[in-house]
């Protein structure tokens, strides 16, 4: 088949996009699909012309917020940035975004492209377009029922890194992401990380059942071997003399949360170019190279603040010596959270926080980074496709921190599962209503004079935001 010249691809794509819009579609995937079929090299050619190249952000959690931060930080340095802001984090979506902004010659008016890509789709993308830089955030459990296993997801991120030409930024606190460095040779590797005193706030999925939760350091022997786990006698005979003993104190099952220990001692970790050194309410302290800075942040929550460290490390790698530190800090302070990730609204004169929870680590962190005292708590759990169908993850979160105040309302498709989970943690639930709209109305009516917090899964958050727009200004999606 003869490949149409670029201007033709753009014209065909634009026409398809117009048609899709006329028919009421969002104009994203279909024209992208069409151009991809007609001209598979389109994307590579359009992106190859950018003077500062292509940057890919991937990982299971925090891509959207981190990408938004990277884009704002680069714009603050005076660069023209192209990004797939339509939320289409797959190749076709990127093609569609390019079509939206490219000139008829297939030229993008930008210095650099920053693309958020879903792990599985990123693998296809990087085979078509080798990124100059990539930032790999983490491997967590929320996608497990789609991708199968954490180790398989880590393999996808590894492939992204291997196809990156200049530099790769890795989360040194995530053992599977850190191990990706082992298969990189020519790329410059940089890390972002946590100061030792903050590490206990970010337990990984692997650490939550660590048998040594009764206290003391966990020996580093459980470090995941991300390479093919062939059985060798040395390997699997295991059981060094450093076992922490098979018995926990009476009546103490191994707790899933709150006591998470990072299994690798700090001194064995590679040095981080950017460290998160302190968390404040709506602010953070960072060490950039040898320089310490503290800044306010518009985003909230410990995870978003750690995402800022990731974004800073990437931007420092991309810009090298060209960077303007003052501009960097002032743009960082202004980045608004991506839709739905830690959103604060005002309802009836009282603050209402929506906290998105979609995996055990995120839920644990949500519980530990906000105090439950003086706040009416609601939890809304759906199990639609976008939330994940499996409810198992609720059993990997400890809800002890809610025991004192209880939970005022539990809602969502899986409200009864959530209620059951809380009952087994001795946390009381005042009311339980699967219907989100009725639950929200009852919850707001019962607590007019208190700050409120709603922990919710993705589709529950979408529905709650819609209903909340009857009470307050909610930013459009």
């Amino acid at each position, binding site marked *: 088949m003869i490949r149409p010249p670029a201007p033709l691809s753009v014209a065909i794509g634009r026409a398809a996009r117009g048609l899709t819009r006329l028919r009421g579609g969002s104009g994203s995937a279909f024209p992208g699909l069409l151009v991809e079929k007609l001209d598979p090299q389109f994307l590579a050619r359009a992106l190859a012309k950018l003077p500062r190249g292509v940057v890919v952000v991937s990982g299971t959690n925090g891509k959207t917020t981190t990408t938004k931060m990277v884009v704002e930080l680069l714009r603050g340095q005076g660069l023209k940035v192209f990004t797939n802001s339509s939320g289409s984090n797959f190749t076709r979506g990127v093609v569609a975004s390019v079509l939206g902004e490219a000139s008829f010659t297939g030229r993008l008016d930008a210095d650099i492209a920053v693309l958020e890509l879903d792990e599985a789709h990123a693998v296809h993308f990087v085979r078509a377009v080798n990124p100059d830089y990539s930032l790999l955030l983490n491997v967590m459990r929320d996608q497990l029922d789609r991708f199968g296993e954490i*180790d398989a997801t880590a393999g996808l991120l590894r492939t992204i890194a291997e196809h990156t030409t200049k530099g790769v930024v890795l989360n040194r606190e995530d053992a599977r992401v850190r191990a990706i460095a082992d298969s990189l040779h020519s790329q410059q590797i940089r890390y972002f990380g946590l100061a030792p005193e903050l590490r206990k706030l970010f337990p990984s999925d692997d650490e939550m059942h660590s048998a040594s939760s009764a206290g003391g350091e966990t020996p580093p022997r459980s470090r995941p071997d991300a390479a093919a786990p062939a*059985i060798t006698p040395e390997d699997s005979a*295991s059981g060094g003399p450093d*076992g922490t003993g098979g018995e926990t104190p009476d009546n103490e099952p191994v707790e899933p949360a709150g006591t998470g220990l990072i299994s690798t001692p700090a001194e064995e970790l590679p040095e981080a170019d950017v460290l998160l050194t302190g968390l404040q309410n709506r602010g953070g302290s960072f060490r950039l190279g040898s320089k310490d800075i503290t800044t306010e942040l518009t985003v909230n929550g410990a995870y978003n603040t750690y995402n800022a460290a990731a974004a800073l490390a990437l931007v420092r790698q991309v810009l090298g010596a060209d960077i303007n530190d003052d501009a960097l800090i002032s743009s960082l302070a202004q980045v608004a959270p991506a839709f739905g990730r830690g959103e604060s609204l005002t309802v009836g004169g009282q603050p209402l926080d929506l906290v998105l929870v979609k995996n055990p680590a995120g839920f644990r962190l949500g519980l530990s980074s906000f105090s439950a005292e003086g706040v009416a708590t609601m939890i809304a759990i759906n199990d639609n496709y976008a939330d994940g169908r499996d409810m198992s993850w609720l059993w*990997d979160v400890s809800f002890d921190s809610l025991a004192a105040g*209880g939970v005022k309302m539990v809602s969502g498709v899986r409200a009864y599962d959530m209620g*059951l989970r809380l009952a087994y943690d001795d946390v009381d639930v005042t009311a*339980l209503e699967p219907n989100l709209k009725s639950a929200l109305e009852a919850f707001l009516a019962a607590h007019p004079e208190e700050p409120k917090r709603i922990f919710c899964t993705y589709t529950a958050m979408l529905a709650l935001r819609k209903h909340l727009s009857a009470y307050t200004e909610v930013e459009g999606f």
Partner: protein
Amino acid sequence: MSTTSSPKPVHVLQLYPRDMNIYGDFGNALVLKQRLTWYGYQPVMHSYDPGDEFPEEVDVVVGGGGQDSGQDRIQQDLLGISEKLHALAENDAPMLMICGLYQLFGHYFETREGRRIQGIGLLDITTYGTDNRLIGNVVSESEEFGQILGYENHSGQTYLGEGVKPLATVRTGEGNNEKDPHEGARYRNVIGSYLHGSLLPKNPAIADFLIGTAVAKKYGEALADSAAPGLTALGLSELTAQARSVAATRPR
């Protein structure tokens, strides 16, 4: 103080919680701990990881699923405690093994490349790795426990030998494999199953079977009434019933 009022201890052993804990299988241990308390016993929780000392007193054993890498890490150690587990099983100790440990309680797991990972052969089952991951909600039916609900996520497919009975018959989902309708296996008081969820919270009949069997063996008594606290919104048994009926209607 009279000694009769202090609750009687029941020892629960969690196998390999560090490496075999994926998909909320911890919930099974938590449910045993809480229900034992509610029935008036004193749960004594033990966890056993590779290299640990095997506890002297064990009344109930639970184990979960893991990553392939976790499975590789514990396999040799498991062979090392095989004799102890066999002795417990032959002595009718109740056990619940989910997913990865269910597989390793069988004769072997054969990978797609034909490599055989040896199990402890406590259950007469064999498992074969496939390219096809069986994922989704499961509704199954058991004569002994009624409807069993859970969530499966496995690429190994398991076949039962003569020495075991299926735990349940699948109505929605796949269970042991894609060929027959069986889910899980049963030998003496040992239960193997692919169902996460966690399994025990929404299937209290199985939890009470494990507890009741342990208590009958150890103290020669039947379970008394449970003092489960429940929620202000709803009692525990009503809550469990509602969670079960929702789970039974959810898409795969």
